[in-house]
């Protein structure tokens, strides 16, 4: 127990929480924008995987991490559009289309990796670039806060910024409002002249774009290489984080941080003498527990509300 506390109450641990939260947070925001438009996007896992590889490949070819990031984001947007095309135009069930994209990502990335790097597991033979880390002046001099909040990858700061950008976008811009309208009631949105399918298509494209930042971070920030199935379920965890966050940007931020905490815990506890299998299970168990607690309380609230309405409706003596 003492070892356990020693691990958690260090600045390194605080730093690593933010580091591992970043991809989950991007994916949760990506899940949010499509969910708000009424489409569940479980292809996030595959989109992150493909964009992680895209970033590595193009940063190698262009000798520039930024161009790698740009191409990854472009790729993610295209993947989102592809999902939108399958779902909205070809009318494929969105879950099945996403399962197909995820399977394609898992096998396809290995196929491409072998073609280009000559290895089926890892891209270490490629001289790919890494996005820079940023030291925040003044903040890095402050004890405790400095080591935790300064010196992160540029995308980590962008992820934190994205929470506010998403908040602004979804609540204050016309497009954000249209997305929410379509998600809440497609018929009502349609009746006032909002193109439902067009809006959902835009939302899915945006979703792919945001997930791409998470994917690029995985291979050009979190680590400096691509390895097979490296996203390891983060796209799925993000879906739970978004649901638990009540589909709001701020809420999703805190739940992503929670799952990031468990992810970091699982990384750190590998030093202790706990069977590593249990440690590796932590993020997934935490996700299930969190999801169940959230939906259970939500359901109770709903039932209580119904009861209250029912009582008010009863005729008074």
């Amino acid at each position: 127990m003492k070892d356990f506390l020693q691990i958690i109450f260090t600045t390194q641990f605080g730093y690593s929480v933010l580091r591992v939260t970043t991809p989950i947070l991007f994916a949760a925001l990506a899940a949010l924008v499509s969910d708000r438009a009424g489409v569940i996007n479980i292809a996030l896992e595959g989109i992150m995987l493909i964009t992680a590889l895209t970033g590595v490949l193009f940063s190698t070819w262009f000798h520039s991490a930024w161009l790698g990031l740009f191409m990854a984001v472009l790729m993610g947007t295209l993947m989102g559009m592809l999902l939108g095309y399958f779902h909205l135009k070809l009318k494929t069930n969105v879950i099945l289309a996403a399962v197909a994209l995820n399977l394609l990502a898992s096998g396809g990335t290995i196929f491409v990796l072998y073609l280009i790097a000559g290895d089926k597991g890892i891209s270490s033979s490629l001289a790919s670039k890494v996005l820079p880390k940023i030291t925040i002046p003044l903040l890095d001099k402050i004890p405790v806060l400095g080591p935790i909040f300064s010196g992160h990858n540029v995308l980590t700061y962008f992820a934190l910024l994205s929470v506010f950008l998403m908040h602004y976008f979804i609540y204050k811009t016309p497009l954000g409002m249209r997305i929410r309208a379509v998600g809440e009631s497609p018929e009502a949105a349609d009746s006032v002249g909002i193109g439902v399918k067009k809006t959902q298509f835009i939302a899915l494209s945006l979703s792919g774009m945001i997930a791409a930042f998470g994917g690029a971070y995985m291979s050009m920030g979190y680590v400096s290489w691509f390895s097979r199935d490296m996203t390891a379920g983060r796209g799925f965890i993000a879906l739970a984080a978004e649901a638990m966050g009540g589909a709001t940007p701020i809420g999703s931020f805190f739940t992503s941080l929670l799952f990031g905490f468990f992810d970091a815990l699982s990384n750190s506890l590998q030093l202790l003498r706990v069977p590593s299998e249990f440690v590796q299970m932590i993020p997934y168990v935490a996700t299930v527990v969190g999801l169940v607690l959230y939906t259970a309380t939500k359901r109770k609230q709903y039932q209580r509300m119904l009861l209250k309405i029912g009582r008010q409706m009863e005729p008074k003596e």
Partner: protein
Amino acid sequence: MKNKKLAFESLRTVLAVAISLVIALVTILLVSDVPGVALKAFLFGPLDSMRHFGNVLEMMIPLIFTGLAVGIMFQADQFNLGAEGAFFMGAVVSSFVAILWPMPAFIHPVVTILMGGLTGAVFCGIPALLKVKWGASELVSSLMFNYIAFFFGLYLINYFLRDPNAGAMVSFLLPATAKLPVIIPKTRVHFGLIIALLAVAAMYFFNYRTRWGYKNRLTGFNSLFAEYAGIKTAAVVISAQLIGGFIAGAGGSIELLGLYRRFSWTAQLPGYGWSGVIVAILARRNPAYIPLAAFFLAYLRIGADLMSRQSDVQNEIVAIIQAVMIILIAAAGFLEKAQYKMVFRDATKNLPKADNTAQEVEG
């Protein structure tokens, strides 16, 4: 009319498969330095020897089980993707039963497979219960449980069944009494194939000839309607996932007892649950078509394996084919216009002349 609709559906499936194959062939032509060798191995490799064809039949067996499992859960409109974990956990528990409980031959595999099946049922039942009781999405929780199953299974094998004398992290040898016999000489095709085909027949009967199966289909088709018609949809939904989990778990057990000397899936999940999704979609959820779909997918994969051994094209190319197939087959909009035209032509063919109908309406 019904036959015509069925014919159209089959045509669509065939066309989707054809398109995905063409995409794969073009990819092979583009990336390979020896496209002739690669194509020959991919398309005809499985037929060139009894052993290779045996490989196809072997691979069919787990695909049939997970295809049936996913099929029945999708039939009830439950997107439980836990077949992957159920298959894995079924095999883990089966290794315990097979290694730790000595039993006479014949009885040993039966008990082992039943225990594997029960494990799978419990495994897929948990997300089902969480959904019905607390409303947690079975999709997300079953995905998480797959990861949990993998690490939990690894823990069990690593701490209780690991053979210290084997070089890698694998279990002790499975006893001969628990193994399933080979049924086709010169191949490794085992008795599991017969069990798989019996399971197909049983599921077909369940689906189309029992009241339970009817309730299951009705609930999947329109759960509100089913609820109003007096069907307890919660019970139906849970039972569908219990049955699906049982089939997947038994499948994992049978795969282990039929083909393996030790439990050795310690690097990653074997992936048959996801393949089950593909098989179920290819078969359009009808159990009768599951063996056909499983055969097709197994043929593709063995062909791709042979191609990767004999040429410079990797077997992951199957991933591309699978993705295109799933999307096109599940796409209601694919060839929709042609379908409308057909329906319209049929509907207007037997109508009396336009002016006659007009008079009738007036009169």
